[in-house]
């Protein structure tokens, strides 16, 4: 049985931990709100660009050759971009992405050979996992997560697109969390390049635009923009998911601390009562002895 003093110490330490976790919860929920705001700001651009692309693809005439970005080549080299976070304490967020990354890398290594699989780790936690997996240290993309900007993701997507263009990789895949809601984030594994160009089924009558300079060159520059956009979307999705996961994890920790405190204070009160009772018995017993 622990002594009164020990229990008091534990209560104290649980209380201070609880203060920390609840502060962290508030911080990440503020960050989550900010990340959601960024996503909101980005939606108009995405919708516009997609509508435009859709319009062009539906109206595609025979003289437009399909983009080289959509070309399926024989798979020899593959690059995987995996999004995790810089810090931990966000539940199973990092563990899930890392496990998926390991699965994907392992299966590609068996299929294509060790040196034909490239990994672009985003976030310190992913980097650590990458080094463990035998990839070289690559710390260029840490800053992307702290302050997700279009420019940052643009650089990475530009590099990957160059590699695809020059044939250094034949496929680029993403692994990231999609922010579905505060309490649910869905792990996604998608092919980024070659891009899947799907024309919408319903043949909406495309507006007949005047096109400057010509359809082919518009299409040629629309598709890279759509690619950059997808990279940015994945980054934002992953960042929002991280904050959501951390908010939930910290909420759980705070709730746990509450339960623990209840238990401990019950134990403390019981012990105190016991001590008082035994003292009383001592005194009463002593006085009986004197009277006798």
């Amino acid at each position, binding site marked *: 049985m622990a002594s009164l003093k020990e229990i008091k110490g534990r209560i104290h330490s649980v209380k201070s931990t609880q203060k920390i976790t609840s502060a962290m919860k508030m911080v990440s929920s503020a960050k989550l709100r900010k990340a959601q705001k*960024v996503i909101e*700001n*980005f939606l*108009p*651009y*995405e919708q*516009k*660009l997609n509508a*435009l692309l859709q319009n062009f693809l539906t109206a595609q005439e025979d003289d437009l050759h399909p983009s080289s970005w959509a070309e399926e080549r024989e798979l020899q080299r593959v690059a995987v971009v995996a999004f995790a976070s810089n810090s931990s304490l966000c539940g199973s967020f990092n563990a899930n992405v890392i496990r998926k990354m390991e699965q994907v890398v392992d299966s590609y290594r068996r299929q294509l050979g060790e040196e034909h699989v490239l990994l672009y780790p985003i976030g310190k936690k992913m980097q650590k996992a990458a080094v463990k997996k035998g990839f070289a240290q690559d710390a260029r993309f840490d800053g992307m997560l702290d302050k997700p*900007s*279009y*420019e940052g993701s*643009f650089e990475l997507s530009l590099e990957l697109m160059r590699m695809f263009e020059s044939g250094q990789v034949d496929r680029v895949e993403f692994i990231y969390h999609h922010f579905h809601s505060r309490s649910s984030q869905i792990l996604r594994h998608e092919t980024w390049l070659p891009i899947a160009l799907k024309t919408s089924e319903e043949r909406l009558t495309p*507006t*007949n*635009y*005047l*096109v*400057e*300079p010509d359809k082919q*060159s*518009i299409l040629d*520059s*629309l598709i890279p*923009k759509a690619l*950059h*956009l997808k990279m*940015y979307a994945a980054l934002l999705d992953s960042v929002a998911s991280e904050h959501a996961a951390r908010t939930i994890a910290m909420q759980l920790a705070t709730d746990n601390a509450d339960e623990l405190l209840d238990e401990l204070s019950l134990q403390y009160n019981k012990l105190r009562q016991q001590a008082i009772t035994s003292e009383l018995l001592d005194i009463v017993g002593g006085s009986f002895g004197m009277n006798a």
Partner: protein
Amino acid sequence: MKLEIITPEQVVFSGDVELVSLPGIEGTFTMLDNHAPIVSALKKGPLRYRKLTGEEVTISVFEGFVEMNNNVASVCVEGVEK
């Protein structure tokens, strides 16, 4: 006509304007009210619009597109100079 200037990070401007002049890939051009539907690629350069009050604003934009349809001009650019 309505003008929207949209970047991936924010909506820079949205409102009614009298005219807008854009850095088209083959040269600067200006659009007025009820321009025919058009899609054009834009290059990096200055974008100028005149509000209904007569106030003129110039911002420099990066590469992108403009789409004009139903008297709404949407400028999608990758960023604007801050």
